C-alpha cells in the first residue's frame, strides 16, 4: 500500500504541475500580448490564439500522414524504396484476402443492423410512455469501451466442455434449444458475426437517439393532414415519415460503415485477429508492432484512409447540411 502511495503521488504531481504550467504559460502570454496595442495587437493575438493548434496539427497529423504515404513505398525499416511492392503484396497474400472478405462482411452487416434496429426502436420509442428509461438503458453501452464490451461478451460467449456446466449465456441458450454448444470464438465464420454483435450492441444507441430526434422533428401537421387523407400505418411511415428522416438514416448508415472499417479493439481483445476474424485495422497494427514492417503497415493505413475518406466526406457534408437546416 505504501508503495502504491509512493508511486501515485509523483504521477499526480506531474499531472497537476503540467496542467498548472499549461495555464501559467497561457496566462503570461495573454498578459504580455494583451499589452500590445495599435497595429500590432491584432496579428499578435491571432498568432497566440491560432499558432498552438496549427503547430500541433502540422506535427501530429499533416506531416505524419505524408510520411506514412512515403513509408508505404519503402521497405520494413524505411530506408529503401520498394515501389508498389507493399501494395502488390496485399493482392497476393491469402491472409489479406481473408481480411478483405471480413471487412466487406463488417461494412455490409454492421451498419444495416445498427441503423435498422436503431430506426425500429426510435419509431417505437415515439409510441410509448416513459421513454426516457429504456432510452438511456439502450444508449448506455455507448459509454463502455470496446475493450469493456468485449469482456462483457467474453462472459456471454464463454464455453465449457459439453459434459460440464455451461456458464456462458449463449452456450446455455443453445443447449436449452437442444443443440450442442461449441467453442464460439473458434467456429468460423460464426465468430466474425459474434464479434459484430458486440459492435452493434455498443453503437445501436447512437442511431436510435438521433433517429428518435429526427422523428420527433417531423411536423405533426403534415402527419395529421396525410392521415386525414386516409394514409395510415406502414403507408404513412413509408410515404411521409421516412422520406423526412432519410438524410439522418443515411448518416447513421455511413457512420456505421466508417466504424466497421476502423474496428480494432474488439477483434484484438476477443481473438487477436486469429481464427479467420482479422480485419484491416488490426492487421495494420500487427504489421507495424508485431512484424516490425513499417512499409506494409503504412500501406495498410493508406488503404484504410482511401476506404474511409469518401464515406466521411459524404457524412460530414450531410451533417453540415442538416445543421444548416435546423
Amino acid at each position, binding site marked *: 500500500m505504501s508503495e*502504491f502511495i509512493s508511486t501515485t503521488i509523483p*504521477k*499526480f504531481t506531474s*499531472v497537476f504541475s*503540467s496542467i498548472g504550467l*499549461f495555464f501559467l504559460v497561457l496566462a503570461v502570454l495573454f498578459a504580455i*500580448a494583451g499589452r500590445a496595442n495599435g497595429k500590432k495587437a491584432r496579428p499578435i*493575438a491571432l498568432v*497566440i*490564439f*491560432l499558432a*498552438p493548434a496549427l503547430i500541433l*496539427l502540422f506535427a*501530429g*497529423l499533416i506531416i*505524419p*500522414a505524408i*510520411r*506514412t504515404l512515403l513509408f508505404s513505398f519503402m521497405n520494413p525499416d524505411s530506408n529503401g524504396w520498394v515501389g508498389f511492392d507493399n501494395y502488390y503484396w496485399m493482392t497476393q497474400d491469402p491472409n489479406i484476402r481473408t481480411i478483405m472478405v471480413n471487412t466487406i462482411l463488417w461494412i455490409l452487416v454492421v451498419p444495416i443492423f445498427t441503423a435498422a434496429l436503431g430506426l*425500429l*426502436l426510435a419509431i417505437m420509442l415515439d409510441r*410509448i410512455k416513459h421513454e426516457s*428509461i*429504456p432510452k*438511456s438503458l439502450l*444508449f*448506455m*453501452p455507448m459509454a*463502455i*469501451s*470496446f*475493450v*469493456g464490451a468485449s*469482456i*462483457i*461478451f467474453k*462472459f456471454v460467449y464463454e464455453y465449457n466442455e459439453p459434459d460440464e*456446466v455451461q*456458464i*456462458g*449465456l449463449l452456450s446455455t441458450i443453445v443447449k436449452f434449444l437442444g443443440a450442442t454448444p461449441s467453442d464460439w470464438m473458434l467456429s468460423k465464420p460464426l465468430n466474425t458475426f459474434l464479434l459484430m454483435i458486440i459492435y452493434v*450492441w455498443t453503437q*445501436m444507441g447512437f442511431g436510435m437517439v438521433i433517429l428518435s430526434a429526427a422523428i420527433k422533428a417531423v411536423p405533426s*401537421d403534415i402527419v*395529421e393532414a396525410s392521415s386525414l387523407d386516409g394514409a*395510415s*400505418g*406502414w403507408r*404513412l411511415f413509408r410515404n411521409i415519415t421516412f422520406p423526412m428522416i432519410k438524410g439522418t438514416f443515411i448518416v447513421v448508415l455511413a457512420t456505421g460503415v*466508417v466504424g466497421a472499417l476502423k474496428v480494432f*479493439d474488439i477483434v484484438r*481483445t476477443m481473438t*487477436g485477429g486469429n481464427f479467420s476474424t482479422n480485419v484491416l485495422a488490426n492487421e495494420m497494427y500487427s504489421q*507495424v508492432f508485431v512484424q516490425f514492417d513499417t512499409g506494409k503497415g503504412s500501406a*495498410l*493505413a493508406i488503404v484504410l484512409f482511401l476506404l*474511409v*475518406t469518401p464515406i*466521411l466526406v459524404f457524412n*460530414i457534408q450531410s451533417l453540415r447540411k442538416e445543421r444548416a437546416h435546423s
Partner: protein
Amino acid sequence: MSNLKIANHNPGRKLFSSKIATVVVWVTTVIWTIPTLGLLVTSFKGDKDIVNEPWWVSLFNPKFTLSSYKGVLFGGDSESLSTGILPYFINSIAITLPATIFPIVIATMAAYALAWIRFRGSDFIFFFIFALQIVPLQMSLIPLLLLFTGGAHIGSVTVFPALGIAGDFAGIWLPHTMFALPLAIYLLHNFIASLPRDLMEAAHVDGANHFKVFRMIVLPLSIPGIAAIAIFQFLWVWNDLLVALTFASGTEEVAPINSKLASLVGQYGSGYTQLSAGAFITIAVPLIVFFSLQRYFVRGLLAGSVK
C-alpha cells in the same frame, strides 16, 4: 402543442400499436442490459463459483463476496497483476485529465481566432482543419512514434530533436491532443461563431482586447458547448486502446486501465475473477459520467460521432 396532442391521439399515425411498441422496447431493453448485468453479478462471485456456476443461478443463490475486487485492486497471487489494477486506474486519470483539458483549451482558442479575428485566409484555414477530420488515427501513428523516439531529420541534419517522451505521460497527452483538435475546433467554431456579434462589438468599443473578450465573454458563454465536447473527449481518451498501445508501454508506470484490461483477457482461472471485477471498475467511470451528465453526454457523443 395542441397539434402534437391531436397527432398522438390519432390512430393513423401509429405504425405499431403502443402496446406492441411498449413490449418490444422493454424486451429489447432487458436483452440489451443483461450482458452488463451478467458482468456485474459475475464480479461479485467468488473464485470457485465463477467457473462452476452460471451467474443467473448465483443471483438466486447469493453468496456474494468482494474477493474479486480485493484481488484485482490490490493484487495478490496472480503473476500478471502482482500490484493490482489500482496503479493503472491512476494512470488512466493521469492520462485523461490533461488529454481532455489541453486539446479543449487549444481548440477553443483556435476556434475563437477563426470565428472572430477575421483575416485573409481564415476561411481557408478553417476548411483545412475541418477537412483534417478525414485522416484516420492509423495514418499518423508510426511517424509520430518515430518523432517521439528519434526526432526528425532531413538527411543527416536534425530538424527536431528526439523528445524523449515516448513511454511517458506526456507522450500520450500529446498524440491525444493532436488527434482531438480537428473535430474539437470544428464543433467549437460552430458554437462560438454563433455568439451574438453585438456583444463582441460592444466589448471592443469599450476597449477590451481579444484576450479580454475571450476570457470574459466567449469562455463563459461557450460553457455548454465546451462541456459536451469535453465529456466526449474524456470518454474517448478513457476508452481508447490504440493510442495507449502505441504510445504507452504496458507498464504500471504509464499504461491506462483499458489497455491493461485488454492484456488480461485470455488468462483463465483466477485471472477470470480479476477480469470481471477489473472490467467493471473500468466501465464504472464512463457509466457514472453517463448517468450524471446524460444531457451533455448525449450531445457530445452525437457531435463527435464522425470521429
